[in-house]
Every structure is written in structure tokens, then in C-alpha cells.
């Protein structure tokens, strides 16, 4: 399948007004206040790329949340737990808008090519519904969302300008529920699972852990030697050293420890 350019649009009119009523905090943020005058062009381009990439990741996360929601309904998870998860796709779409608008605030999006049919890996259709849900929740929530919370919170604290602070603050607030959701699901689902099921969940979680570590190895290998921390903070991200130290600690405390405590035999 041919790749597509990652760009986004709003329908507008009544549809947008309904959306705005659901999430009024988006328009309340101080849009139009980030003045890039005086910042090096390369730094601004870097920031545009980072925020465009964040928008793409949020978009993929929305896809993953929607796929997980379907699996939760198929396995007849507790209704209140499904209801909790039903908010997540909208949260992620809001984050897509916030990060995309940050990129536009800085001068516009950068080029991302992607394949719409291959944004996430679904669980094996041959698995029973409960294990399908557990497979995705282990990868997407128990690893991805759980480890992201402390990193997002630290990035929020590092951001000084009111606009990226508002954007990151909103994302941090929403993601808190996403981060605990995976373990709430496991606490319910594990009661009816076999040892083989637990091993399957461990393999899924291990795949997620390896993917995160691969990302961080890339940061380690390609970290900027001429990094200007003051610029970075102004634009809304952490210094690489601080990020990588927190990432390693967070993976241990937010992901590996709670999985092992629940008897999930991860090996990574």
C-alpha cells in the first residue's frame, strides 16, 4: 500500500462546535503567543519536527485505544471498566489537536510518511477474546502508556512557556487514567487466566518493553552534542540525559515491577 503524508483537518461548523463543547479546554489555551523571533531557525525546525511527531504518535495511540476498546467489548469486560476506556480515544484525539497546533504555532508541520493500514499491530484473531484484549492492553497500556506518564510529567515541568505548559499539562492530566487502566484490567482478567495465558501476556509485554528500549537506544546514540538546554526547555522537552535516566527508572517502577507483582513472567 502506498504511503500517505500525515496531515489533518477539522470538519468545522456544527461538528466542531459539538467537539469544542466536549473539550472546551483546548480553545482556552494561549494560542498565538509563542513568538519564535530570536530563536535559531534550526531549533525551531527541530521543535516543529518534534511536535509533528508527537501528533502522529498521539494519532496512533488513538487507533490503539479504539482497537483495545473493541476487544474489551468482545470479551465482555466489566461495563464500568469499558466505560472508563471509552474516554481514551477522545482524549487522544484532543492530544492530536494540541500537538498539531503546537507544530503549526511554530511555523507548520514537518513531513511524515506513514501507512494507514499498518499503524499498530492488532492481537492475533485466533486468540480468545479475553486474551486478545490482554495482548493489546499489555503492550499499549501496561508498557506504553504506563511508562509515558512520568516522562510527560517531567517534560511538562521543564516547559517554561505558558503554551507548551498548558498543552503538556492537559496531556499529563488525561494520561494518568490511561496509565493505571492496564493494571486495573489485569487485576480483573488474571483471576480467570491460566499459566499459559500469563506467559502469553508476558511475551506481549516483553515485545513492548523491547520496542521502548530500542527507541531509547536511538536517543542515546544520536543525542545532540550541541544541545542548548535553555532553548529546549522553552520549546518543551527534556535534556537527553535527564530523559534517559528517568526513562530507565520509570520502566522499572511503572512497568516491570507491577507486572512481576501480578505474576506476569516478563524476561526483558
Amino acid at each position: 500500500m502506498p504511503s500517505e503524508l500525515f496531515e489533518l483537518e477539522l470538519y468545522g461548523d456544527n461538528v466542531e462546535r459539538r467537539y469544542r463543547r466536549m473539550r472546551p479546554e483546548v480553545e482556552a489555551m494561549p494560542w498565538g503567543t509563542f513568538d519564535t523571533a530570536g530563536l535559531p531557525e534550526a531549533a525551531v525546525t527541530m521543535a516543529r519536527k518534534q511536535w509533528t511527531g508527537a501528533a502522529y504518535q498521539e494519532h496512533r495511540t488513538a487507533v490503539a485505544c479504539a482497537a483495545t476498546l473493541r476487544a474489551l467489548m468482545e470479551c465482555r469486560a466489566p461495563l464500568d471498566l469499558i466505560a472508563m476506556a471509552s474516554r481514551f480515544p477522545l482524549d487522544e484525539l484532543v492530544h492530536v489537536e494540541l500537538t498539531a497546533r503546537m507544530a503549526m504555532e511554530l511555523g507548520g508541520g514537518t513531513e511524515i510518511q506513514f501507512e494507514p493500514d499498518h499503524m499498530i499491530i492488532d492481537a492475533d484473531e485466533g486468540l480468545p477474546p479475553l486474551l486478545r484484549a490482554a495482548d493489546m492492553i499489555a503492550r499499549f497500556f501496561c508498557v506504553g502508556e504506563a511508562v509515558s506518564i512520568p516522562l510527560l510529567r517531567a517534560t511538562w515541568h521543564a516547559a517554561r512557556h505558558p503554551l507548551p505548559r498548558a498543552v503538556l499539562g492537559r496531556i499529563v492530566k488525561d494520561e494518568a487514567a490511561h496509565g493505571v487502566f492496564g493494571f486495573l484490567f489485569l487485576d480483573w482478567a488474571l483471576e480467570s487466566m491460566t499459566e499459559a495465558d500469563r506467559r502469553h501476556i508476558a511475551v506481549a509485554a516483553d515485545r513492548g518493553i523491547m520496542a521502548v528500549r530500542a527507541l531509547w537506544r536511538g536517543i542515546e546514540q544520536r543525542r545532540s552534542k550541541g544541545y542548548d538546554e535553555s532553548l529546549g526547555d522553552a520549546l518543551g522537552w527534556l535534556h537527553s540525559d535527564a530523559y534517559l535516566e528517568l526513562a530507565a527508572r520509570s520502566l522499572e517502577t511503572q512497568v516491570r515491577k507491577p507486572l512481576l507483582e501480578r505474576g506476569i513472567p516478563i524476561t526483558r
Partner: protein
Amino acid sequence: MRKGTGRKLLVATLGVGAVSYVACGGVVANLMAPPQDGGADTSADTAGDAPRDTFSPLDIIANLVAPR
């Protein structure tokens, strides 16, 4: 992008900071990872560098905005 009548929310500049998620995908999460060297140039870089035979970066999602 598909031709539509909606209001543009994100418009990309071709050739700037180009990244391809084709056949690799990268971590499915926004981890607010910091930027890296070479990230501001116009060369395409890969979104995932892990061996494809052991796992796929598409396996997880996260909101991992990473550093430079």
C-alpha cells in the same frame, strides 16, 4: 492528504525534517522524547531501528516525546 472541504489543522512542509514510518512504525506512544542530532535537517530518518525478527516497534503505544 485527501481533498476535503474541512479547515486545515496540520499542514506539512515537504522535505523538512522528513521521517518515514513506512514498514517500521516506531513506538506507538507519545513519549515526548527529546530531539536528536540530525533531526532538523531534511534527510529522512528511520523511526525504528530494532531488528524486525524479534519484535516490531508497532507493538506498543505511548506518548513519549523524546529529547534532541
